[in-house]
């Protein structure tokens, strides 16, 4: 009898541990999570400038988890000013967001990528007399972070990065790296290249860059899952940042906010401009300003030039969209939708997310997006 008790006790203990594992892993694997924002403080100062909708109500949205921290900042500030409107942003990923948008369940969707042709066709069923359009809203950039003893500043370029992350270069003092960093005392140590172990939008953006700007040294297509040879992996942006921090001679890629909060050194990228471009929000904004609008009509889908040679344009820049109907938005949520997006694209809104590691949209681009928001019907 006693023996059975012992077993069942151990089983119960195991069950408790298992349950806690499950619940913790559920929130632990959410990638792209940025540190919590101090949105309320910045919100208080801008509260006066937010034009609320006459009639509030519930504003539902969902999609990209990369946007979630930005939306959280905006939600806090907007909620302070306009208490009658309650915004609910469910994560769930870009794909889920677009699906729900096309089912007419939400007022807008956050998405890492622009709408595909088939998705635009599907949106016409929901947007009476109109279609779904992409509004660039949340800019970001990916830092190349490194931890090399005695090296504070490092310069890399597309082909070198492609070779490093594909294990074609394995030593820090390789001639390719030395040529870009004259006068820097590079160690003869092995490069510890670290990539994300799970599928991630950050990996997709980096590999898209490597495929475009890698000079043919990156043989794989842009993808969410890692395809390069060698290196080690770590789980999530936080895991990658922690590995770079504690591993000597390591290099990896994380979004800007992780580089900032973990105090990691970011490499400058030699793009062909007169001098290497540092990974700063301002340099990311320059790239966004140079991006071409490829969307048709009111759609403002951007094509970011990863191979840009413009002065001060950081190439590893990305933008995520809010997807709305150009015409045929639901009448009851339209005023709140316009009011909220007018705030997010405003200087205050963009500066607020700039403080938590995003790239504020350049003024000209923001102005164009504002014009589209004003025209929403």
């Amino acid at each position, binding site marked *: 009898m006693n023996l059975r008790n012992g077993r069942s006790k151990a089983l119960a203990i195991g069950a408790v*541990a298992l349950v806690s594992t499950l619940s*913790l892993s559920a929130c632990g694997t959410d990638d792209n999570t940025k540190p919590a924002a101090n949105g309320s403080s910045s919100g208080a100062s801008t509260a006066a400038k937010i034009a609320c909708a006459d009639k509030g109500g519930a504003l539902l949205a969902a999609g990209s988890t990369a946007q979630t921290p930005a939306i959280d900042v905006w939600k806090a500030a907007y909620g302070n000013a306009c208490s009658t409107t309650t915004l609910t942003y469910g994560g769930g990923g870009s794909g889920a967001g677009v699906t729900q948008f096309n089912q007419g369940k939400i007022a807008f969707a956050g998405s890492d990528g622009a709408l595909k042709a088939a998705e635009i066709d599907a949106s016409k069923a929901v947007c009476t007399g109109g279609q779904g359009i992409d509004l660039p809203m949340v800019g970001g950039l990916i830092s190349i972070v490194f931890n090399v003893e005695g090296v504070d500043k490092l310069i890399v370029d597309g082909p070198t990065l492609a070779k490093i992350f594909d294990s074609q270069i394995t030593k820090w003092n390789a001639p390719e790296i030395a040529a870009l960093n004259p006068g820097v005392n590079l160690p003869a140590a*092995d490069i*510890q290249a670290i990539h994300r172990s799970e599928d*991630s939008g950050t990996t997709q953006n980096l590999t898209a860059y490597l495929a475009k700007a890698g000079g043919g040294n990156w043989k794989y297509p842009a993808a969410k899952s890692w395809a390069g040879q060698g290196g*080690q992996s770590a789980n999530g942006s936080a895991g990658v940042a922690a590995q770079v921090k504690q591993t000597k001679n390591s290099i990896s890629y994380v979004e800007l906010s992780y580089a900032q909060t973990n105090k990691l050194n970011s490499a400058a990228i030699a793009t062909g401009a007169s001098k290497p471009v540092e990974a700063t929000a301002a340099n990311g904004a320059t790239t966004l300003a140079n991006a071409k609008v490829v969307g048709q009509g009111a759609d403002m889908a951007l094509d970011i030039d990863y191979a840009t040679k413009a002065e001060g344009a950081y190439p590893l820049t990305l933008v995520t969209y809010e997807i709305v109907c150009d015409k045929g938005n639901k009448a009851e949520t339209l005023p709140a939708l316009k009011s909220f997006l007018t705030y997010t694209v405003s200087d205050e809104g963009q500066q607020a997310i700039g403080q938590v590691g995003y790239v504020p949209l350049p003024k000209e681009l923001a102005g164009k997006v504002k014009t589209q928001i004003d025209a929403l019907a």
Partner: protein
Amino acid sequence: MTSSSPADARGRTPRRRGDSRRGDAVFFNLSRGAGILLLVIMAAIAGFLTYRSALALGKNEGNFFTTFEWTPDAAKPVFGIAVLTFGTLVSALIAMAIAVPVAVGIALFISHYAPRRIAQPFAYLVDLLAAVPSIVYGLWGVLFLVPHMDGLTSWMDQYLGWTYIFDQSSAGVPPRNLFTVGILLAIMVLPIITAVTREVFRQVPRMHEEAALALGATRWEMIRTAVLPFGRPGIISASMLGLGRALGETIAVATVLSTNSKLTLHLLDPGGGTFAENIALKFNEAQPLGRDALMASGLVLFVITLLVNGAARVIIARRKEYSGAAA
């Protein structure tokens, strides 16, 4: 019901018997129901996994058992469990090799060596280890254990490198490998194995122990001749319980291991993967086919666990003469 006068003392006996029969029937049905429920749940899990696996396996363009890569969402879906099977079994084996002897030692200490007033709090302490969430083990592993494994791994590389499995291909790589995972898993399963073996050792008939001592056995001889043989089935089933956790451990492995799709016997080189870790990392961004493929790998883990447990039952059945039922 409560109106019982001393007069009907004779009549009470059958009524009470009737009550207890009804109680018997209720309890019998409840416990049978619980048993059936367990079978239904198992069947539901197996059925669900089999159905989803079948969807994925039909579209796999690689061999499910020998392919190393896991790219079910690529244009040409290819996925296989070779690396995952290897990593799961190896890390669990390392964990058991370390945890079982230590756990038996702790259990013996608590049941036979420690003074009662130390044994009790010590037992609680071990139980407490089981309640630590595995993400905490994972974070401890990656932030503390991994940096502090450097010395051990380079020592093993230097002096045990001739064994091939402990040969490190390149120095300076953080030891986020199957060996470190094994050590972490050992710590995680330790309390489970200890708790069960401890209870079994406590059940050793006092007469066996005293008989051994009376025949002139020292304490160690008494433990060897009376306690360990009696406790062996308990140790085995405790180990199986621990092994189950080691095989299925998810987030701690995902946090510590540097995963890739290479199969190497160099246990000190980072790389490899396990079933549960692979499912946890790939599930979030998986497309429908990718999800079904992960279900297929989950089914394999399910089968492996069943096989391992079955094997353990066979071992225990063979040694029935020592089991508690005989005492």
